[in-house]
């Protein structure tokens, strides 16, 4: 049902945890759907220097969370914002169709974290 890459990221998820004093935090998903993702990012000079995730969810939810952290680490904010849920799914060699909508939220969490960072900047 899942690709080898999904199973790899599910079994050995990268960048699990939470960054203390994060530059931005993104939390998406809901209990009805069964997936909740929390992504914390550290940003220095408009570059994402560190990223960590915590996820409650199925195999796809955990794998996409792990994959998005790999995709954005070291990336500039402009490039990071171009990453979509589809980019993440493709990087994992695809997801089962039923999972594409509900458990493919990692890029949403990333965008929420970047937005949180920008808001914090404005209020500073």
């Amino acid at each position, binding site marked *: 049902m899942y690709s080898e890459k999904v199973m790899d990221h599910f079994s050995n998820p990268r960048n699990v945890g*939470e960054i203390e004093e994060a530059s931005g935090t993104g939390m998406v998903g809901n*209990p*009805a759907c*069964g997936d909740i*993702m*929390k992504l914390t990012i550290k940003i220095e000079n408009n570059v994402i220097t560190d990223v960590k995730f915590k996820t409650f969810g199925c*195999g796809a939810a955990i794998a996409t969370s792990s994959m998005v952290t790999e995709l954005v680490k070291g990336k500039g904010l402009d490039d990071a914002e171009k990453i979509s849920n589809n980019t993440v799914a493709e990087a994992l060699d695809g997801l089962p169709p*039923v999972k594409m909508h509900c458990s493919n939220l990692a890029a949403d969490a990333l965008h929420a974290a970047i937005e949180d960072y920008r808001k914090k900047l404005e209020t500073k």
Partner: protein
Amino acid sequence: MNKIYFDHNATTPVIDEVFEAMVPFYKEQWGNPSSIHWAGRGTRKAVEDARENVCKLLNCAPLELIFTSSGTESDNHAIKGIAYAKKDKGNHIITTKVEHPAILSTCKHLAKEGFEITYLEVDKDGLIDLEQLKAAITPKTILITVMFANNETGVLFPIKEIGQIAKERGITFHTDAVQAAGKIPINVQELNVDLLTISGHKIYGPKGVGALFAKRGVRLTPLIHGGHQERNRRGGTENVAGIIGFGKAAEIAIRDLDKEIAHLSMLRNRLETGLKEKIQHVYVNGHPEKRLPNTANISFEFVEGESLLLNLDMKGIAASSGSACTSGSLEPSHVLVAMGISLELAHGSVRFSLGKSNTVEEIDYLIEIMPPIVERMRSMSPLFAGHKF
């Protein structure tokens, strides 16, 4: 890696005795049981012998048993068969919110045709309130259908009492006993049921064969029109080998019933006690006593069921989350949600359904490997922040 199967409510393996009984009906005795010649005669006798064995499992008469292709077909046959046969008398059907999709989808279909469906609520233990059932009955009620045992939690419904209520009011009563058959005694003479569904592959028989008990005098509109098979109640040449296998499986189920109940409840209790001892924030779903001996439905707070199943699968253990039929959807189990269990806990549920080949060693292996899996998944869960072991 050892392969361990804890998903017997989804399906069971065909046991050797059953398979061996079936083989001749693919090889030497391939005749059509409806034929009058030498090739068919022996097959007819074998089918009728098998029917008697399945009847013994329910304590009904051979005339009262219709072979079908599955539990789902039997459910469809019972519900649509009564709805169409009695539509001049009324259009109201009562069922529960926690039925198998074979019941719920059939009712939903009938609702589109103008039938009114009442879905009874269940309490936190998964049981219905008989007063609520009585209150739901109207002069137009033609059918009550309530499952014998829930497939996800194993919770047992008060079939005899429901049957009594239906009987006093002249309402037909059907029960889906697919999960109960072979796991607990069933005696239709004592239960006040008019219709009862069972399936071959849940009792170590083959897939593709089910049966519907229809009490003498209960008139059903056929679902499948065709030849005169099954006394004109179900057209189509009999699935002979399947029926033979079903008969053999029923014979073994009756023979081993007491032994299996003792074996399964011992293992199930060991599993639940062990997991609760080793892991915090673990909840067993369903009434603690009124349930099947083999089913443990357990919620592991802060983690999601499918990710637990994937971890278990990597260790060779097959279990399920909700029912196999709903695992293609993303909705949390409709059974657990109806019981008022929170969405997080419903998503964090795993069903272990045990069977005759399971051993104490297998249970102990599960109890050993489960705590680190849950701990790892919790360490990744944003819901777990603030909670410590």
